[in-house]
């Protein structure tokens, strides 16, 4: 039996002023699978991720998770934005990891991870700390719990950022070029954490230029260009036998 679709993106359109950035994007991500999003710069990959957790509004289409429409609700045949508190609650189920980590510099590693759970989940501070230490163990940074982000390497910061997102127990994790800001020798440690996460059954959407990661970890590879998905399939289909000229073009350039 095929796994159920966790995240269903359907015909999403997005404009920045007059610039049509997403032109009807549809994508299904089954529970427990990893979708890697590829495509040239400016094709709309980041925008698509940011629409999922409503860091950006959309102009048409809908995104549902577990059957619930995210950020919008239908009334009188039109989509209306949900109240901010509802959107914030929905965001708790969506973890996001940014290219530039965006750790909170005024908090220690541990505080970065426990901040959201101790404020938003009705768990005690002590329980949040226990969970945070487990996560730090998982990303291999238990000894850095009291360090401040500025004293960590980029790779360590990104692993903390992943732990921070995981602390909210999200149903899906979004990664926007998580290794693009890293020195080459630090990329591996972050990808390893992501591989472990995928192996543990986390549903993930990963925007990346790391082709070997996509080939090895992805269940599906999705290629975007100029605001549309031009091709998608298994890694083998996309990498070994791309159907679209633009996909071949793109893959030639990144190799």
């Amino acid at each position, binding site marked *: 039996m095929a796994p159920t679709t966790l995240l269903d993106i359907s015909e999403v359109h997005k404009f920045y002023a007059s610039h049509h950035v997403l032109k009807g994007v549809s994508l299904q991500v089954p529970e427990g699978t990893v979708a890697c999003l590829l495509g040239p710069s400016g094709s709309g990959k980041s925008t698509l991720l940011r629409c999922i957790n409503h860091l950006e509004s959309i102009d048409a289409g809908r995104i549902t998770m577990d059957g619930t429409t995210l950020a919008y609700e239908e009334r009188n045949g039109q989509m209306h934005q949900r109240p901010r508190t509802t959107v914030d609650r929905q965001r708790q189920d969506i973890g996001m990891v940014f290219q530039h980590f965006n750790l909170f510099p005024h908090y220690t590693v541990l505080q970065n991870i426990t901040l*959201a759970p101790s404020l938003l989940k009705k768990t005690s501070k002590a329980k949040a700390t226990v969970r945070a230490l487990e996560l730090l163990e998982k990303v291999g940074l238990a000894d850095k719990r009291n360090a401040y982000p500025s004293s960590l390497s980029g790779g360590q*910061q990104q692993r903390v950022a992943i732990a921070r997102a995981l602390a909210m127990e999200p149903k899906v994790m979004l990664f926007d070029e998580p290794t693009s800001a890293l020195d080459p020798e630090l990329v591996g440690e972050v990808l390893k954490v992501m591989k472990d996460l995928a192996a543990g059954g986390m549903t993930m959407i990963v925007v990346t230029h790391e082709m070997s990661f996509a080939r090895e970890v992805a269940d599906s590879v999705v290629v975007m260009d100029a605001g549309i998905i031009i091709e998608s399939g298994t890694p083998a289909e996309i990498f070994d036998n791309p159907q679209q000229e633009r996909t071949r073009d793109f893959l030639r350039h990144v190799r």
Partner: protein
Amino acid sequence: MTNALLSQRQTALAGATDRVAAKRHPWRIVFGLLAAAVVVWGALNLWLNPALDHGTILKYLTAESILTGVKNTIVLAVIAMVIGTVGGYLVAVMRLSHNPVLRAIGFGYVALIRSIPLLVLILFMGNLALFWSRVDIVNPFNHAEVWAGWDMNDLVTPFIASILALAINEAAYMGEVIRSGLRSVDQGQREAATALGLGSRHTMSKVILPQAMRVILPPAGSQFVTMIKMTSLVSVIAGGDLLTEAQNIAATNLRTLELLVIASAWYLLVTGIATIGQSILEHRLERGQRRVSI
């Protein structure tokens, strides 16, 4: 250089050849002595000026009304600063709002207040009774029955008027200080907090404001030091501050100069303490400075 350092150097360089002699600065000493002499001469000249009656200064330096004035000056400065900071936060949030009307109001407030001299604002507040002689809370249905009412002069005493004027003025300046503090925080911080599901209130209080504080506190500290001195302007409406009290005494004993010296001494002390507090604060902030390296 400390003696320990010097002797450590001597030992380390014991076998070295072509030792470089310490550089001498003969003119530094000459100019330094000259400048010091000028300062001492000037100070003595002021202090020993026959127009100045030292007995009066000593007599009134700690007079009860002067001490009350000092207390009032501090109370004025603190309350006006607190209200001004809260008001400034609102102004800053308005100016950064997505709502164009709020943005325009915030901008207009800052522009207006910054172009009105504080002295004029104080005079306005001191003469509020000319605008509205009474404040009455009236039954909104028949407009006849007065539930409660005050004479404006009882409601807004000179002291209250002083607080109002100083706070209204401060809100405009603190608004700019807080706005630039909020803007200094990287946009990615807000996005990371939002993505975690922190609401706008938590995002502001736990993520944005603590980081903005590093930028806000140093200028806010000097705003406060300035505020202490600006309170003296309320003496024009007899706001009860230090200068008001000093002038009251001077009006009876005609020792204007002596009482100005007394007032200055107290201002020196109070602003001095505030300045020391401010630099301790700044040092702490600098030590705690932590930046993400990306």
